[in-house]
């Protein structure tokens, strides 16, 4: 067992424990003020913000790993970039599906096209889906790695814009982190904190698993190459 494989179970355990704590806290604390921010619906926020956060982290990892691949030409970096992009799309999907559920209850509509935060996040999601399409359409592994790295470095522009959209332009989307007005109660803030940490650990676990698969695939390719050389 490699070091990464032996890390997996403890990381999964931590993620599971933290998620349980987050769920418990979400059930306990939000009910203390059911009338504010849409009552029970408000609890969606923990899942929504944590997913959005992880997707930003994941895309940032894709970007950094892509740059590192271009510098070192080491396929292990690319395994990280590709895996992280897949997970980022997964978590971004969670964020942009939980968002409308909340919006329908509070705003009365699922989606507001005039809100730049929503638009930026949708675009971010599309950009990395396009990234996955790019990777699926490359005949050569190394070619895909460098094309993906260049593309994701342009796509990375969306991440800060999506994160900061509701801070730069006044919009409908609420701003909960780092503002004095419309901020969270302490208990809700703590719950959100635990949820974010739990999802981040979950992301780390999924990364370890996914990168493991990618590594195994690369090793298999190498073995096939060697076997081919040996026979041929």
């Amino acid at each position, binding site marked *: 067992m490699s070091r990464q494989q032996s890390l997996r179970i403890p990381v999964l355990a931590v993620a599971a424990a933290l998620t349980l704590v987050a769920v418990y806290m979400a059930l306990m604390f939000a009910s203390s003020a059911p009338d504010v921010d849409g009552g029970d619906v408000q609890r969606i926020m923990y899942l929504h913000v944590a997913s959005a956060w992880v997707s930003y982290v994941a895309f940032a990892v894709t970007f950094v790993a892509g740059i590192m691949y271009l510098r070192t030409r080491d396929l292990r970096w690319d395994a990280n970039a590709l895996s992280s992009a897949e997970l980022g799309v997964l978590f971004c999907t969670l964020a942009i599906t939980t968002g409308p559920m909340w919006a329908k209850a509070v705003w009365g509509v699922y989606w507001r096209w005039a809100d730049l935060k929503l638009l930026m996040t949708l675009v971010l999601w599309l950009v990395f889906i396009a990234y996955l399409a*790019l990777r699926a359409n490359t*005949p050569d592994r190394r070619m895909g790695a460098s094309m993906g790295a*260049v593309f994701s470095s342009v796509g990375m522009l969306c991440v800060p814009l999506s994160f900061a959209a509701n801070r730069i332009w006044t919009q409908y989307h609420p701003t909960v982190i780092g503002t004095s007005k419309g901020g969270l109660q302490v208990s809700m803030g703590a719950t959100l904190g635990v949820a974010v940490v739990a999802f981040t650990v979950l992301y780390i676990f999924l990364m370890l698993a996914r990168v493991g698969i990618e590594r195994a695939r690369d090793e298999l390719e190498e073995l096939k190459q060697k076997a081919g050389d040996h026979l041929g």
Partner: protein
Amino acid sequence: MLLKELRVEFRNKQTVNSFIILSVLILAAFRFAFSVVEPPVEDIAGPNLWMSIFFAGMLALSPSWKREVEQGTRDGLRVAPIAPSDVYLGKLLANLVVVFALEAVVVVVVVFLAFFPGTSPDWPALLAVLVLGTVGFVALGNLISAISSNLAQSEVMLPVLLVPLLLFTVVISCVGATARVFSGATVLEVGDELRFLAAFALVYIATGYLSIEYVLEG
């Protein structure tokens, strides 16, 4: 490099002409589609103009790198004593010339024939938006075209990769600014959008200039 590109592009007059015809057709198609709901003409002229430019422009960008791969001249470019960044700049300028040619026709059609027989918008403002928007669009499109030329189904992959990146940067500001110009805004009044467009144009040229080397090497 620029001269070589232009020579290739205009040697085959059919290609440039067909882009122009296509852009006018797109314009007509959308004009017709919108006529069902009859919105105010100023409101749809901007979106219509840019839709036509983006779609026809994308088709014009696609062969620029693809033909290097298909004809095997990409390896020639790689070993030639020219820096990859200069190849990028050369292609960028050549593509700009083609897209500007296309735009000239589209704008004339939009302003004088399809939408505003009689009144005309503030020309300096319209030109400023067009030029900055096009530079941003072509700068990024040129890089993405280089990327997609290496992929399977490259004709489909170019818009798939390019549209999401363009949406939030160039498209929003271009369409917004043009709509306001058509409803009577002057250069100063669309200053915010122009600054935004200029910033993205610079960022994209810089990105393309710096990263084209990795795309060419593969």
